[in-house]
């Protein structure tokens, strides 16, 4: 099949489409004159959830009726937990704001680049978040534990060992397989886009 033949096929298809559309004009008008479809984007729901997370967190503590005692432990815990929580919260807000700046009426390559940069931003933050998480967890535990009474037996050690194991395996899998590969691919994609933009 020759190229001219393919172009003829395309033109015929185009003609057929416009004829069909003309016939269905009224349906199209009806469809669009009614309320535009409000389909919520999953990514925006997720970002919205993060924005409301402090309120949800406070509500969770209220429901569980967690008691805080203003001891030295509490203040040490608070000084660990609060800065980390605030930093990650600010990152989530910035990410949400960056998503909202994506304007699909820009050229295809610039959107591709913007999305790749956004993904890179997310990966970087995830990496730091993982490293800070143990400190935030220790901080929170210190905030709710009034007195540290700990006995070295199997019952008290097992949950701690399990938490550490799950955290280390999650850290290993995220860094080794997903983050590193995705980051390299994104850098490669951005390089390719920049090459295409150049004359």
């Amino acid at each position, binding site marked *: *099949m*020759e*190229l001219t033949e*393919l*172009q003829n*096929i*395309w033109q*015929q*298809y*185009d003609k*057929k*489409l*416009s004829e*069909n*559309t003309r016939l*269905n*004009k009224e*349906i*199209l*008008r*009806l*469809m*669009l*004159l*009614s*309320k*535009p*479809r*409000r*389909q*919520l984007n*999953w990514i925006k729901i997720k970002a919205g959830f993060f924005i409301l997370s402090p309120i949800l967190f406070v509500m969770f503590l209220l429901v569980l009726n967690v008691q805080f005692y203003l001891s030295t432990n509490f203040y040490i815990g608070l000084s660990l937990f609060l800065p980390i929580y605030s930093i990650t919260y600010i990152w989530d807000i910035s990410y949400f704001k960056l998503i909202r700046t994506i*304007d*699909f*009426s*820009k*050229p*295809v*390559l*610039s*959107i*591709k680049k913007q*999305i790749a940069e956004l993904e890179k931003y997310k990966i970087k933050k995830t990496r730091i978040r993982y490293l800070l998480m143990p400190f935030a967890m220790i901080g929170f535990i210190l905030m709710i534990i009034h007195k540290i009474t700990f006995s070295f037996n199997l019952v008290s050690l097992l949950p701690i060992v399990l938490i550490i194991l799950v955290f280390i395996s999650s850290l290993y899998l995220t860094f080794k397989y997903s983050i590193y590969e995705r980051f390299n691919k994104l850098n490669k994609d951005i390089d390719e886009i920049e090459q*295409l*933009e*150049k*004359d």
Partner: protein
Amino acid sequence: MTDKRQKDQFLDILEKNIGIIIKIARAYSKTLHDKEDLINDITLELWKSFGRFKGGSKISTWIYRIALNTSMNYKRKREKDRLFFLDDLKQIENLSWLIEQPDSSHSEILYQCIDELNQLNKAIILLYLDGNSHDEISDITGISKTNVGTRISRIKEQIKNLATTKT
């Protein structure tokens, strides 16, 4: 501009250019359901961006950009991710006419060939087949004019080979 006037103006533009949306949605979707969903998404993105459109570029350039960007970033929605309001169900039924158009066997082959290309090459060949000049393709995609020319020659050769094997 009143809401009613803005909607009417939008509708006129959409009616004149619906072919672009259908062709792009067809090229970037695998199933009829996805095609319908993608047409819906593109229309919604166009409507969202319409208020900001000040006529800095050609209407067709604006439509091509939004349709291609939406299609390239389209992720198949699972049923549980769809959040419909009651009114929308009626609209979805109304959309069915868009997917009922049967493709001829020839155009089907052409789409099969296009489907083998990567996302960006797919966009370039769709724009080329629609009769856009190299300048316009460069403006829509952001690829430099030199690269557009080189790419088109390569894609044409690729499509030609694919079409020969498929017929």
